[in-house]
């Protein structure tokens, strides 16, 4: 069964729909109604640009079973120009190439499959921006 949380998170996962606090400027992904920084309830919707910078990253060599064929792969905390942070896989490169400061574009990819017959879960992953820029 698809998890209710996956469905609830679709705006954030599919479109990077976030919320910016009008009081302190904190950007929350997924959207929140109360700012986690200053408790203000004045949150305005913002759609993040599909760009980001690696804040920190790690290479997964021993993954959960369902990601066996993908190892080794990089996971990173990525900050968008709006200041929102998300954790995502960085793909289409060698895992060890991924370092803090690396410029990424955020592309729509399949994140996981729920077993053999379950739903397909989609979201965004980082891809180094040098790609596609011939």
């Amino acid at each position, binding site marked *: 069964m698809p998890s209710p949380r996956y469905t609830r998170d679709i705006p954030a996962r599919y479109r990077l729909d976030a919320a910016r606090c009008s009081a302190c400027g904190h950007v929350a992904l997924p959207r929140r109604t109360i700012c986690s920084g200053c408790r203000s309830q004045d949150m305005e919707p913002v759609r993040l640009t599909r760009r980001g910078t690696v804040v920190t990253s790690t290479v997964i060599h021993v993954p959960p079973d369902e990601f066996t064929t993908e190892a080794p792969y990089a996971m990173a905390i990525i900050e968008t120009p709006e200041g929102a942070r998300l954790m995502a896989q960085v793909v289409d490169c060698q895992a060890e190439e991924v370092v803090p400061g690396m410029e990424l574009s955020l592309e*729509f990819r399949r*994140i996981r499959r729920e077993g053999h017959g379950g739903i397909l879960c989609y979201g965004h*992953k980082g891809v180094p921006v040098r790609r596609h820029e011939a």
Partner: protein
Amino acid sequence: MAGIIGYGAYIPRNRIRTDEIAQQWGREPASIRAGLLLEEKSVPGLDEDTITISVAAARDALARADVDPSRVGALYIGSESHPYAVKPSGTVVAEALGVGPEYHTADFEFACKAGTEAMFVALGLVESGRVEYALGIGADTSQGAPGDALEYSASAGGAAFLFGRENPVADVLDAVSYTSDTADFWRREGEYYPRHGGRFTGEPAYFKHVLGAARLILERTGIPPADFRHAVFHMPNGKFPLSVGAQLGFRRDQLETGWVVPTMGNTYSGSSPTGLAAILDEASPDDLILITSFGSGAGSDAFVLRATERLPEVRDRAPTVRAMLDGSRRYLSYGEYAKYREKIRMNS
């Protein structure tokens, strides 16, 4: 007049060379390359499928059109590799684009013709005034059985076209379809790889229908082949589109820009649409363009387009097909390819 107001394409970054596949099966690489005119083909990443390719291509189409996605009233995706057997690809793609909830969607299938079917229907809905904007997308992550001739060509990629009535980058002058019941290539429900009728796929299937649709639209528009700047025909391999183009009276230089198959492979529903995207990347205002698809089963759709002054203005808002084909690539060994295409049986 309705036309294309935005377009985009996407080709995954992984490649496998024809030589690598030929060597795996003990075939002579040079003769395979010469026979099919294929150098390499794209391979989808482990996390890429028809849905992700469609999203990437359609985002670029919307960026070039500069249209608010919530005004898109219809979205159709043609593919023979929809990730779900039951559940539309279109709903995922629309949600990712910010289209809806007031829109109409359907997934189309017609072997390699499904992409131009999606375009044909999107165009018709815009022409009728039923919707303001409509997206037609063709995308595939095609599979050929190991060792089969199709393994050299079956690749991954797609293109998306946004149709509307204002500010077109290319006017659509006419669109036709030419279809008959022909069993040249098929896959039964539950089968993993498609089957084909070998030599039967040529004359009675590909050539009959591509020639039928192309001659029909040339006659209806009254435009002789010499007046076109560009033409693209479905590309199951390198040879067929050049051969059918020559039979229709097109010169090689008219076919060159859209002939992306030697380094892309056959992206099935994305094949001639991606060739069209490559043409729009290069075309000048007033250039006449012919696109003719082919889908086994069998049929062809043909469109005649005329580029507008707006085309060069929007082109740079997204990557070109050529940049994706010639840009940063990762070459796979046959072993990696087998893993990527899930041809290896795992314990699960």
